């Protein structure tokens, strides 16, 4: 007797009217019930490889122009620069795969760190760091409940959360910055090392591994893509779509808190006006990573490469002395150039 979740395990469930729904998922996602993931989940998709090619090209140009571009020190600079936004892009990618969007990441990052900053006087690193992470988690869960249970569009609910969290950060802090320099454990997130590797880079790598595992090798990943590919089909297949969505929003909230923690520790101050426009930068990395805002498509590996592309471009342009404004133009053009073929392909498939 076929079971509702069989196709998730074997990809061949044909019970009830499951075939039609699975076909819908295939249609939207590209080829497979799990979205555009390749037949061998351990390997990156072709689209991701094209991003890797762009990354290699940029690095080659960088090394040609600046012989020290591939030095350990410059790689450290690039990786620490993208660690925060990269971690956020992982969370955002998972949200986008489910067909939703999280515009509140900047607000969540700010409010989480501000809440931690309010506890600096206690001198307890456990309390401070715990509060930062807990705040991110709670705000993420609220986002998830608003979307999955209350039924508010994620565009609207997370936009509201962005405003509310930013405003609360100002109210709680009185608009004043806090300085966590004396809390060594807090500062470790930005300035510490693990076996010689800067903590932001180590966290970036760790989060990448966790997210890759979640999306590519676990049942959760299949549910994720199924939810984004066709939520109704996934629901009829026995997937608790609401739980999946709440989980990814919660995870994205934690990612925002971690990113806030890293950046605040690197700069040694908690700023209630920090991260202006961060949500759009994260969204840009997510899209550059191959995620489709319609859902069902995207990969953490793609987001990882996209974050590195942005980091390399910014580093290269800064080294070349290109103005900040021109950097924005170049970055946007690179995003368009990389994303455009994928868009054409999707249109063709449709």
């Amino acid at each position, binding site marked *: 007797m076929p079971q509702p979740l069989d196709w998730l395990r074997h990809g061949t469930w044909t019970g009830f009217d499951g075939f039609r729904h699975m076909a819908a998922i295939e249609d939207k996602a590209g080829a497979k019930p799990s979205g555009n993931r390749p037949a061998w989940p351990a390997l990156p998709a072709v689209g991701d490889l094209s991003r890797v090619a762009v990354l290699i090209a940029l690095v080659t140009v960088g090394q040609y122009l600046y012989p020290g571009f591939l030095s350990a020190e410059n790689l450290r600079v690039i990786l620490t620069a993208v660690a925060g936004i990269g971690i956020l892009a992982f969370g955002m990618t998972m949200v986008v795969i489910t067909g939703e969007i999280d515009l509140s990441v900047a607000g969540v990052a700010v409010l989480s760190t501000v809440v931690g900053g309010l506890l600096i006087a206690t001198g307890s690193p456990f309390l401070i760091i715990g509060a930062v992470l807990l705040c991110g988690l709670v705000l993420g869960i609220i986002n998830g409940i608003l979307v999955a249970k209350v039924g508010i569009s994620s565009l609207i609910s997370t936009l509201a959360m962005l405003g509310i969290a930013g405003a609360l950060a100002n109210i709680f802090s*009185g*608009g004043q910055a806090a300085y966590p320099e004396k809390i060594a454990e807090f500062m470790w997130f930005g300035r510490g090392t693990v076996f010689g590797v800067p903590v932001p880079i180590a966290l970036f790598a760790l989060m990448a591994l966790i997210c890759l595992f979640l999306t590519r090798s676990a049942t959760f990943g299949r549910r994720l893509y199924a939810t984004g590919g066709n939520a109704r089909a996934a629901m009829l297949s026995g997937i608790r779509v609401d739980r999946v969505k709440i989980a990814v929003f919660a995870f994205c909230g934690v990612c925002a808190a971690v990113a806030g923690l890293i950046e605040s520790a*690197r700069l040694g101050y908690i700023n209630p006006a920090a991260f202006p426009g961060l949500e759009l930068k994260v969204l840009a990395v997510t899209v550059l990573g191959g995620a489709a805002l319609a859902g069902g498509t995207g990969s953490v590996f793609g987001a990882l490469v996209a974050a590195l592309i942005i980091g390399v471009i910014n580093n290269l342009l800064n080294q070349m002395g290109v103005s900040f404004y021109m950097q924005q133009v170049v970055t946007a053009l690179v995003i368009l150039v990389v994303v455009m073929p994928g868009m054409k392909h999707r249109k063709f498939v449709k």
Partner: protein
Amino acid sequence: MFSSTRRAALRGTISAVVLMAVQGGFTVAAQAEGVHDTLNGLIAKYSEQAKQEMSNKSVSELFEKDGFRDYLDVYPVGELAEGFVWKPGMGATFTGPYSKLEIKSPFTDYIPLAEGPVLDPNKTYKIGFVFHGFNHPWLISLADTAAWEAARHPNVEIEVIDAEFDDNKMGQVIDTWVAKKYDGIVLWPSREAPMGPPVDRAIDAGIPVVSVDRRTSSEKISSEVLGNFYANGLQEGLYLKEVLQGGNIVLNRKDLGSTADSIRTGAFLEVIGNVDGFNIQGNYHTNSQRQLAFQSTADALQAFNDISVSFNTGGEEAMGALDAIREAKRLNSAPDGKKIVILANDDAKEVLKEITDGNIDMVSPYTPLIGDIGIRAVIKHIGAKEGLNEAPPKLIMTPNLPMITKTKMTIEGVETMTPDEWPYAYGPAVN
């Protein structure tokens, strides 16, 4: 058209001021009744020299490319109102109504107004104060001083509104106050052009309007309380010229075209424009964001091994640059193992701490504690309207403040202050 008319008028005024100063033969020390005049004399001196010639090609190229001359020529530099002479130590101490921090405000004796009822004691005067940014220490301090001054006068009611960097909202707030027939309006505009029409509407309705720190495009505005951007950039240049005769400079600047960037950076370049040893190695606009300043400096440190100077248009930029230099362990990576000279503006407490610790080399103060001047000026305008007193001048210059260095120095007649001697720093303390 509007802008050029205004520029032409201001250019004439400034040229006259500069000419008078030049004719005075730069006898800076002799005329130094206060630091304000000393610095104005130096501004005139270096401005004139830069106009004659800028021998440093690297500096002059940037100066030309970004059109600094156009901005510098129209930025008012002049005497203080009512012959006021500011000296370190002046001012009043109080707790900021919004920040809840202890503040020593430097200019409470400037355009003074005695505590107690103002103008007609039987009348209550309603004043609106609109600005942007209850999320920024500098701006909160500005609002603190405005609210403090209003609270000193029992027949003055103040309404403070944060327009949240929304020009339309600020315009609507002003229009609402016009409709409600407020007695006076004080504003801190973010940008010049959009606030001209609302200010004009208020003036046409007979309501005095005073802007503080930044300007509007209104020619009808009652008074403008202006900051000392010129003295900021000038002093960064003076300090650098004093401690180095050459080296590669990386600039972390504010938004292109903003007054703070054009005047501070322009004045800095004027001072070093005839010192041939300096070279502009990197030039970044980091838009007042510490994170961007951090990143541009981190990347510049990878591109260049011989950076001698980090010039920063603001305190946020300086802190970002310092953090990047520290993270790269490059504080002492200037040629011959010397320390990278870090120049800053804005006297936030965190910047002063870094000066005490020897990490940032100098800061040129740009105090937000001027909201009180705006309130006093608008009250005097209301009084003038009611025939009770003389109106204050249209251009109210705030006193130039001396730079702060770790140890006491005298540079071209400017006596620097040490962090311990400077009670006017703003923002939360850093332990």
